[in-house]
C-alpha cells in the first residue's frame, strides 16, 4: 500500500508503479460507478484517463496540496467529471480540430487542453515523434526556444554562432519535425 505522499511524488515523476497502483486501486470503484449509471466500459476507461490527466495537471501546477486525501480527491473529480459528462451528453458540441483549439489551449483553456491531450491525433503524433526523435541537437534547440523561451540572440551567444544561423536552424529543425509528424499521421 502506498502513502499519499508516495503517490504524489510518484505522479510528479511519471512513475509507472505509482500509475499501476492508482489504476488497480481506484479503477474498480470508478468502473462500477459508471457501469451502474448506464455507462459503458469504454466510457469508464475514458473517465479514468480524463480524471488521471486532470489530477496530474493539478499536481504539476501545484494546485493539489491536500496530501492526506488523494483517494477522495481523485474519486470526487471523477464523479464530478462523470456528472458533467452526463449533462452534456445530449448536446455535446465537438470542438473543431483546427488552430482555434491550440490557441485556446495556449491561453490556458483547460477544456481545450484536455481535448488535445486526450483525443487529438496531431498532438499524439507530435508527442510520439518528439519522444523518439534522434536529432538531439534540433530537439535541444527547439526545447530551449519553445519551452525555456530563450531568445535566438541568447542561444546564438551561447553557441557562439551568428544569430542568423540560429534563426535558420530553428526554422529547418521545425520543418523537419513537422515532416515526420505528417508522415506519422499518414
Amino acid at each position, binding site marked *: 500500500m502506498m502513502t499519499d505522499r508516495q503517490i504524489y511524488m510518484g505522479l510528479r515523476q511519471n512513475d509507472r508503479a505509482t500509475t499501476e497502483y492508482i489504476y488497480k486501486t481506484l479503477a474498480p470503484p470508478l468502473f462500477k460507478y459508471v457501469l451502474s449509471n448506464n455507462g459503458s466500459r469504454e466510457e469508464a476507461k475514458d473517465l479514468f484517463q480524463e480524471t488521471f*490527466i486532470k489530477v496530474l495537471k493539478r499536481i504539476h501546477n501545484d494546485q493539489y496540496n491536500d496530501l492526506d486525501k488523494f483517494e477522495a480527491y481523485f*474519486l470526487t473529480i471523477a464523479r464530478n467529471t462523470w456528472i458533467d459528462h452526463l449533462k452534456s451528453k445530449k448536446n455535446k458540441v465537438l470542438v473543431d480540430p483546427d488552430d482555434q483549439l491550440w490557441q485556446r489551449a495556449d491561453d490556458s483553456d483547460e477544456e481545450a487542453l484536455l481535448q488535445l491531450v486526450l483525443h487529438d491525433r496531431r498532438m499524439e503524433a507530435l508527442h510520439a515523434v518528439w519522444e523518439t526523435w534522434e536529432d538531439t541537437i534540433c530537439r535541444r534547440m527547439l526545447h530551449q526556444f519553445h519551452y525555456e523561451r530563450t531568445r535566438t540572440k541568447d542561444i546564438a551567444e551561447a553557441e557562439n554562432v551568428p544569430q542568423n544561423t540560429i534563426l535558420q536552424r530553428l526554422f529547418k529543425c521545425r520543418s523537419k519535425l513537422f515532416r515526420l509528424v505528417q508522415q506519422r499521421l499518414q
Partner: protein
Amino acid sequence: MSVEQTQDTIQAYLEGRMSAEELRNFEAQIQADPALAEEVHRCRQLRVMTRHEHLLQGKQTLAAVMAEIDITPDYGQHRRYFDHSSWFQRWLPGLLVLAALVSGGTWYYGYQQRQQTLARVQSVLEPLDNIIGFSPDDPGSAAAGMRAYDQRNYPEAIRYLSTAAQESQDDPSLQLYLAVSYLLQQEPARAEPLLRPLTQTDALLTVPARWYLAVCLLQQGKKTEATPLLDALEEDVVYGEKVRRVRG
C-alpha cells in the same frame, strides 16, 4: 522579412509581448502570408506540447498500464464517494424514524395521562344519594327505577327511569338519576345530553349536575371542556375534595 527571420517576432506574438499596434500589424501579415500563418501554428503546437509534456507522458504510462490490467468493477470501500443523494435524502429515513418515535412517544404519553385521569375519575365516581321519596309499594316506573338504583342494579334502573323520564319530562331529578345510572354503567355519551340542560336549571341540582357532567366529559377524554366545570367546583363543600383527587 523571410519566415526564418520572424522567429522572435512569432515568439513575442505567442507570449503576448506586443503592443496593440505591433499586434495589429503582425496579424495583418499572418492573414496575408499563408507560410507565416503555418509557421505560427507550428510554433504554437510546439509551445503547447512542450509545456504539457508531463501530461502526455503520464497519459502514455497510463495507457500502457490500462492495456495490461483487467479491471473487475467493485465499489469496495469507496461507495461513499459516489453517493449522489443530498444531505436531506441521506438522512430522510432516519428523520422519518425519529418523527415516528416522537409522535408515538407523544401519543403514548397522552394515552397514559388519559388512563390515569380515567382511573382517578373511576375512584371518585359514586352514586348520588337518593333524595326522592317513594314508598316501597309505589307502583310507578319512577319508583321502580329508584328502587333498582338504590340496589345498584343500574341496567334495571336505566330501563325504568328512561320510561319515567319520558312520562314526566319536567322532572329534572329523574333526568339526573338516569344520567348518573348511565355514568355508573360506563355510558357517558348517553349521560351527557341529559346532564347539559340540568347544569342550567334547578339550583338544587345544578351543583351535582355540574360534577357528573365534568365526570362524564373526563370519561370521554374531553378534558378541556371539563376544566371550567372542575374549576367552579374546586371550593365546593361536597365536591371540592373529589375534584382535587381527580386532578391528582
